[in-house]
């Protein structure tokens, strides 16, 4: 049995390279791998191509920090805490970020296709919309970018109902260089257990070349081999596991803690202003050595407020 435990800084420097394609787990206010996001910014990695379905806090911070050059996305918002992710919006409006839009199902199917080892999957959503017709990356850009296929997508007739002319879209599969997710539980070998909703995390991991998993609980024994029908993927797909309690803060982690409403509201205001955003990054990311120091800044009393009520999975009655 190979022990895959390492420090977060080691995992990021070993598996995330300048110019890589990357995909991060979670969905809007839940299970964003934030500790890993901060570490990527701290290590001054650049030129990433990002694959995102519903990106939120992690996506906005990476874009705002200039880590991401181009992105294929379905959504950039954080519920009531950002009707549109602010740094994302500004970066697109300023031309600092090149984007190409798909739908959430499209992006999900593209990860699924990558995880299945097929070059494409068919889908029946988006025909005759601008998602089909309007490309964000032109042919020249596509040629130069190794993460992109020649075409955004294509369409064929259903060959099993030729007479009816039924058309379906084919979506090119995605295989990120690296996927990072934050899980509730993992063990030293790389067995991973997600609790509550899975979002697209499993597909994102299975489609990637390298997989980094941060987690709340890291088991030193074979606990996760019992009832293993609840595990997310075989351990041999995982390259690094790191115990990072509260590693999704300020987003939530079902059964462990709630999202930090106050922090997210504060961030929404800060993100409107370039200078304030930079100060935020300095204060919470660059000027702290690691995630523990970050948590010190958040403070004990907030941490305690957010703790999930067992059985419910979130913090009942807390002031959101």
């Amino acid at each position, binding site marked *: 049995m190979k022990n895959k435990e390492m420090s977060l800084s080691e995992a990021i420097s070993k598996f995330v390279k300048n110019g890589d394609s990357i995909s991060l787990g979670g969905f809007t206010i839940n299970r964003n791998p934030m500790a890993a996001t901060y570490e990527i910014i701290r290590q001054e990695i650049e030129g990433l191509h990002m694959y995102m379905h519903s990106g939120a806090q992690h996506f906005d911070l990476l874009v705002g920090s200039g880590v991401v050059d181009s992105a294929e996305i379905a959504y950039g918002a954080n519920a009531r805490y950002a009707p549109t992710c602010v740094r994302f919006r500004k970066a697109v409006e300023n031309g600092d970020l090149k984007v190409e839009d798909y739908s959430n199902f499209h992006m999900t199917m593209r990860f699924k296709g990558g995880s299945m080892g097929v070059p494409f999957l068919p889908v029946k959503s988006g025909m005759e*919309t601008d998602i089909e017709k309007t490309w964000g990356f032109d042919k020249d850009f596509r040629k130069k970018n190794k993460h992109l296929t020649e075409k955004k997508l294509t369409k064929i007739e259903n060959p099993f109902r030729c007479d009816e002319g039924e058309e379906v879209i084919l979506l090119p599969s995605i295989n990120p260089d690296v996927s990072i997710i934050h899980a509730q539980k993992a063990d030293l070998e790389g067995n991973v257990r997600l609790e509550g909703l899975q979002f697209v995390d499993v597909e994102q991991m299975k489609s990637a070349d390298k997989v980094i998993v941060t987690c709340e609980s890291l088991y030193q024994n074979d606990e996760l081999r019992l009832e293993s029908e609840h595990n997310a993927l075989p351990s041999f797909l995982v390259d690094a596991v790191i115990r990072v309690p509260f590693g999704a803060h300020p987003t*939530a982690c079902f059964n462990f803690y709630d999202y930090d409403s106050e922090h997210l509201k504060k961030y929404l205001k800060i993100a409107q202003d370039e200078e304030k955003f930079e100060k935020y990054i300095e204060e919470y990311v660059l000027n702290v050595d690691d995630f523990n120091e970050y948590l010190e800044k958040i403070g004990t009393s907030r941490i305690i407020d957010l703790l999930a009520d067992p059985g419910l999975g979130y913090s009942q009655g807390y002031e959101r």
Partner: protein
Amino acid sequence: MEYTDREFMTIVAARQIKDHDIVFSGTGISLLAATMAKMYYSPECTIFYETGAIDPEILEIPMSVADSRVMYKSSINAGLFESFCLLQNRFTRDRIISILGAAQIDKYGNLNTTCIGDYNNPQVRFPGSGGSCDAASFTRYIVFLAQEKRRFVRKLDYLTSPGYLSGGESRKKAGYESGGPEAVVTNMGLFKFDDEIKEMYLDQFRADVEIEDIRRRMEFEVDTSRAREIDSFSEEALETLRNEVDPKRLILE
């Protein structure tokens, strides 16, 4: 009886949901309407979030479809793949009704949630489709918008989610086997779509507004010949919304 625009829109949309409907809920006011339907009008409906949570016990209003509050005592906690496949599945898609928001809508119920201006150099960037394009592709849907001229436009800046495309049979011809826009709910009334030409018409309007005022707030012409005053709703409904659905006014404000 006094109520805000959001309260009005939530209740009007919630009333469109029937018992045994499966409701695909988006974020924001859509979450409110779905929760209101379940708690008051149609307790036998099933709420379904694109994140993969189906039919949870909602004790507190979720702020997002990924809120941990949608995961408690659900029938299943799955993921986006399972959820969108259920929308596309031939045995389930007709049982589902979606509630969507939009920045722009045209007379065929096509939606824009992506940008204003040129896509590659936009004046304003919005979040993008999320699951909106998919829900609109597979299911019947209700749309929420404020009654504003810049929202009810002749031509969308970007067509994110397919309505009846260019009307008539065009949706079917494009390959969509089911679904389409069913109702548009604004702060001033309720629109539906003509069975034949698939154009939006005014179905009901708020008692305290003028039809002319609604028309002024739309870039395209709309048939108002079938319009009638909207059915009033009870004090009890409003109280349920205020005291049970969103007592802290987290989404209502």
